[in-house]
């Protein structure tokens, strides 16, 4: 009887181990399924012209389909739009985010800092579609039109909490002796921050920025109400502009352009995953 009970306990133990391994392995399947599908369906669309030409009109695409030719054009308008909006968002979000993070790390006990810290979490948890609505109300309505500026404001708001958090967390794990040594050498707080703490925290902050970029670059919903989209290459920031995820959404909804979905998705996916892996690699390297 005792032996039987012992056996069943061991059997349960084994069963749990196998179940955990099996289910954990199964969880990895979607990543490879998605990567595989996007890669297999998208790789033959990637060509030089895919990156240098703007999206074709539905009419042109229809003609090409009728003639049995591949759809002309590419996603250059989206790539340039993404770069412009992301560039503007990064230029503002990085300094503001670093300074906010520094403030939080310097004054962990202050009531106001705790409020800011909580609100940063709140902002980070806000659904991106709501950021889109709010920026529509803030920027698009007063400016009387969709614009790259509005899109970049939306991206800015989404990047900000990510950069604040990563800066704060990196600065908090810096040894206190570092700051004290700087102060002992006669530097004031500002100088120690600029010359000692920020350089020491550079690795963590940099990876945080990379991750923030990879988070927002695929955002579609907020850009739908702010940047709107545009079918030709444009450099002005006060007019509607396109972005790669917006183009994917457009292709998804337009039966004539559906062939272009996978090339655009492959480009976006490769970009995001490369950024992610680079950030992870750098974080590991700098931590050693």
């Amino acid at each position, binding site marked *: 009887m005792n032996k039987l009970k012992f056996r069943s*306990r061991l059997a*349960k*133990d084994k069963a*749990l*181990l196998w*179940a*955990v*391994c*099996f*289910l*954990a392995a*199964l*969880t*990895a399947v*979607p*990543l490879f399924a*998605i990567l595989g*599908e*996007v890669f297999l369906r998208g790789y033959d669309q990637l060509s030089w012209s895919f990156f240098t030409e703007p999206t074709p009109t539905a009419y042109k695409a229809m003609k090409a389909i009728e003639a049995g030719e591949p759809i002309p054009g590419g996603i250059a308008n989206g790539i340039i739009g993404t770069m412009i909006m992301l560039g503007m968002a990064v230029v503002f979000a990085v300094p*503001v985010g670093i300074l*906010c993070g*520094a*403030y939080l790390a*310097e004054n962990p006990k202050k009531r*106001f800092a705790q409020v*800011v810290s*909580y*609100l940063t979490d*709140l*902002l980070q*948890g*806000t*659904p991106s*579609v*709501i950021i889109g*609505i*709010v920026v529509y109300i*803030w920027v698009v309505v007063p400016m009387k039109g969709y614009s790259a500026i509005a899109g970049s404001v939306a991206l800015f*708001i989404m990047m900000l909490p990510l950069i604040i958090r990563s800066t704060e967390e990196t600065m908090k794990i810096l040894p206190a002796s570092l700051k004290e040594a700087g102060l002992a050498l006669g530097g*004031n*707080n*500002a*100088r120690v*921050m600029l010359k000692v703490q920020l350089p020491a925290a550079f690795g963590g902050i940099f990876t945080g920025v990379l991750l923030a970029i*990879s988070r927002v670059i*695929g*955002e*579609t*919903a907020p850009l*739908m109400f702010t940047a709107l989209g545009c079918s030709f290459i444009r450099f002005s920031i006060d007019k509607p502009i396109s972005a790669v*995820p917006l183009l*994917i959404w457009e292709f*998804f909804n337009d039966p004539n352009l559906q062939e272009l979905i996978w090339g655009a*998705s492959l480009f976006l*996916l490769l970009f*995001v*995953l490369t950024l*992610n*892996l680079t950030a*992870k690699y750098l974080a590991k390297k700098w931590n050693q």
Partner: protein
Amino acid sequence: MNDKLYRIILFVVALIVPIVCGGVVYALVTDAYDAFEHFGFFKFLTSSEWSYTEGSERYGALPFITGTLMTTLLALIFCIPFSLPVALFVGEYFRGTKIAAVLSTVIDLLAGIPSIIYGLWGFYTLRPIIMALNISSQGSGVLTASLVLAIMIVPYAASLSAEFIKMVPNDLKEGAYSLGATRAEIIGKIIFPVAGSGIFSSYVLAIGRALGETMTVTMLIGNTNNIPESITSTGNSMASIIANQFGEADDLRLSSLIAIGLILFLITVFINLIGKIMIKRARIV
């Protein structure tokens, strides 16, 4: 730069966060006001009509609140049997090994995939499977959306749960081992009771993620403005109705959509707040 100026600069920059948050709330409330005033707050919440024929416009949020709650709840149910094993794999069984590092990288990458690509995959791969299995004829619906949503929230639930599983003190586990407990018994009788509240809080935060997910749900839920009758029928979530109609809406419909946005915002903030408080409590224990 002297110290005083430095402090002032930091303080002023930090003010941006409260200003942005206040601006978010202010913009949502003022622009949602019309809809609440026109229909009445509770009437708006409980009405299931959504018709925009001119002259007899009627908007209510109930179908979309139901849609959001259904997709989120189902996604949570589908997510648990996968995220919990991943957390145990990374945090207990293969803790600190290379294979655990590989799995957590895979899970991290899963979190990095843009939601529109999840939507595409769901639409072109999962939807045909659901149609072939005869679960629903059109393929899209609450079930399809929740399945993909579940994959999307697994990384959030798993990585945080793993962290709490790792924090279970070794003495407790060693004590149980010395009494002859098997690993399965340790997990059931030591790890879950000790890390339970932390694991629970990681699911609360995962819910917070799922509530506001927009593109995936928009592409898969079927976009009909009625209360879903069953899990295989079509519907709309709060986020997906906004994504679908915001661009073409004006006046009362725009205000109603913003009101739905406000409700979604409040629900998300509430869930996230609960999650954060629970995490803080779990960390202290």
